[in-house]
């Protein structure tokens, strides 16, 4: 298991007691997002569907890379890796 940090975006920090970063032990990005629920109930549901897929309004990066360009939620994480959860920002007139 690797210890990884997850950067929480401002709109979701109400679910982490205001914490901007959460540390979890996991081997993949998906496992890390699942593990965060043990510390902050309700957060996983904002990131993943009931089927465990990444929600469309959320982007997840491992370091500088969008995990959709890697192996998705199955992307392996090394010890000390940094995962960023980013809200999709979109709209139009």
């Amino acid at each position, binding site marked *: 298991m690797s210890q990884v940090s997850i950067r929480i975006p401002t*709109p979701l*920090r109400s679910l982490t007691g205001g914490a901007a970063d959460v540390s979890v032990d996991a081997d993949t990005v998906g496992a890390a997002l699942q593990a965060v629920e043990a510390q902050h109930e309700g957060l996983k549901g904002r990131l993943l569907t009931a089927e465990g897929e990444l929600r469309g309004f959320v982007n997840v990066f491992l370091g500088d890379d969008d995990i959709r360009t890697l192996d998705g939620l199955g992307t392996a994480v090394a010890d000390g890796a940094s995962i960023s959860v*980013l809200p999709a920002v979109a709209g139009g007139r």
Partner: protein
Amino acid sequence: MSPQPTKTLETVRAEVARTVFEDVLPRAAAGFPNEVCGLLLGEKGEAGWRIEHATQGGNLVVDRQHDRYQLDPAHYLDADRRARELGLDIVGVWHTHPDHPPIPSSTDREHAWAGFTYWIVPTTQQGASDGRWWILEGDGFVEIEAIQTPEQRP
């Protein structure tokens, strides 16, 4: 999309550094007739939002930039790192409404996040104007007052 009904929330407001307007409005005007977008860096407290900096990110929409925007997520990541260096957070979003009032559309509502403030800047061939500020309350947007502050805090 037709604008949603509007109301105003008087209990919170946005205090916005004058330099933010000076940064954003020329960029907004230059982007006409397309929608342009960016992020607002600052702090959010009980009294509202304090905006110190604005960024501009790429609009990833390919076929209809005149009425849709999708901010490049890589820009969000960069802006978050910059915010951390400044001791700030990403607390809002700005985007333009070309030839359209600065009122959130149903598309804006569909993609909105509670906790952010949304600054909509109307643009025309003649330029950009100050626009209006909104936050998500329950199922809809409410307008908040924006106060220009003369200088950024140190």
